[in-house]
């Protein structure tokens, strides 16, 4: 099957919100005739925005992992857990399956997001024509799994609300969980700012 033409080559563009196809325009203030949102052929300042948000996320990722996210307090003991030590505890407590799920959501997914987004941004900046289809797939993967990293944040929220037995037993959130929540939001924003169409624009080879 022959390759379909691209909208930009046909002098068209599609509204990013409602998908209405319109004639191409350079005008930054043009509005979609159907839904009224601003029209743009490519997301504005996509690469620099995505980089900025990604770097910010990477910086916050350090305190998110170094600082404890949760304090478990009872009469006799006080126990601060980081993301990693919480996973280890879950493993030892006899739920290795859940430990793997939490490890995937809290460690593997964010790290993969940093690596993949960095890779996509670098290859786009170099106008690389390499493995475009695979890169497109990587981007869709990042979009799909991104928000699952909020898992640990919600776990801490529920435990803090539940375990409130005055001095007997308490669970409290610690600053690490705030940083981690910020990391997830920033990586999601970074992925949303990135325009996957750039993967297919100005490819040197081909």
């Amino acid at each position, binding site marked *: *099957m*022959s*390759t*379909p*033409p*691209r*909208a930009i080559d*046909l*002098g*068209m*563009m*599609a509204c*990013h*919100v*409602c*998908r*209405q*196809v*319109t*004639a*191409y325009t350079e005008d930054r203030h043009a509005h979609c*005739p*159907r*839904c*009224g949102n601003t029209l743009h052929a490519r997301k504005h300042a996509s690469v620099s925005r995505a980089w900025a948000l990604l770097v910010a996320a990477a910086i916050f990722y350090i305190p998110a992992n170094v600082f404890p996210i949760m304090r478990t307090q009872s009469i006799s003991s006080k126990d601060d857990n980081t993301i990693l030590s919480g996973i280890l505890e*879950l493993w030892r407590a006899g739920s290795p399956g*859940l430990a793997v*799920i*939490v490890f995937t959501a809290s460690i593997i997914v964010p790290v993969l997001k940093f690596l993949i987004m960095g890779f996509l941004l670098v290859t786009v900046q170099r106008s690389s024509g390499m493995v475009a*289809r695979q890169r*497109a*797939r990587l981007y*869709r993967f990042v979009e799909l799994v991104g*928000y*699952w990293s*909020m898992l*640990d*944040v*919600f*776990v*801490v*929220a*529920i*435990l*803090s*609300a*539940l*375990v*409130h*037995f005055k001095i*007997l037993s308490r669970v*409290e*959130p610690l600053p690490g969980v*705030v940083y981690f929540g910020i990391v997830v*939001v920033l990586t*999601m924003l970074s992925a949303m700012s990135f325009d*996957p*169409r750039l*993967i*297919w624009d100005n490819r040197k080879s081909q």
Partner: protein
Amino acid sequence: MRPARHAPFTPICDHTERPVAAFDRLDGMQRARNLIVCEHCDSVYRRRHLARGEVADCVVCGAVLERHQWLGVDAQFALIFAALIVFVIANVSPIVTLGLSGMKAATTLWGAVIAMWNDGAQIVAFLSAMTLFFFPLGQILIFGWVLWFARKGIRAPGFPLAMSALVRVKPWSMIEVFMLGTLVAVVKAHTYFDVVPGPGIWAFGFLTLLVTVFSSLDPRELWDMTAEAKA
């Protein structure tokens, strides 16, 4: 599901000779309605009718172009209404109850939000309230609003705004993640406490199921299915 392909779009005028001009002709909008542009790689296709269960993939980048809308407007409205009821139940009933030597503690979603706020994690409280309450509720209400009018084939007041909001809010609704988080929290608490799951956890489970069904629906179809009320 059988994958289906859209027939590749053939240029409106032959070759490269000023396609914009051709596109701008009177019949431009009519033609545009039959076109679909891949959101991920900008490839243009002529839309074709999809049979039940078919999904059209982009031949260039592999992204989903569109899915067959297997539920009619009435069925979608019924589903949204069900989701609203389940959402209310999920929010008013306790998710889990803990027991420790005779004492009991239960929480709802808002209990978790308030606990985070009071314990110095206001940002997390805000994020949880938005992604687990306001965005999902907004999605349900707005979708319900446009569907209510779409059943009569007309566009609801504020239709363009509502449709834009639906598209923008979608990635920020995290009910599924909360569901899994609850399970992890239950298992963690189980080591030290007696854990009794409340009706809220079932409601959230059911809501997760409904959310999954919703994610296969594209509200943007409503643009083609409805007409301006004024006309």
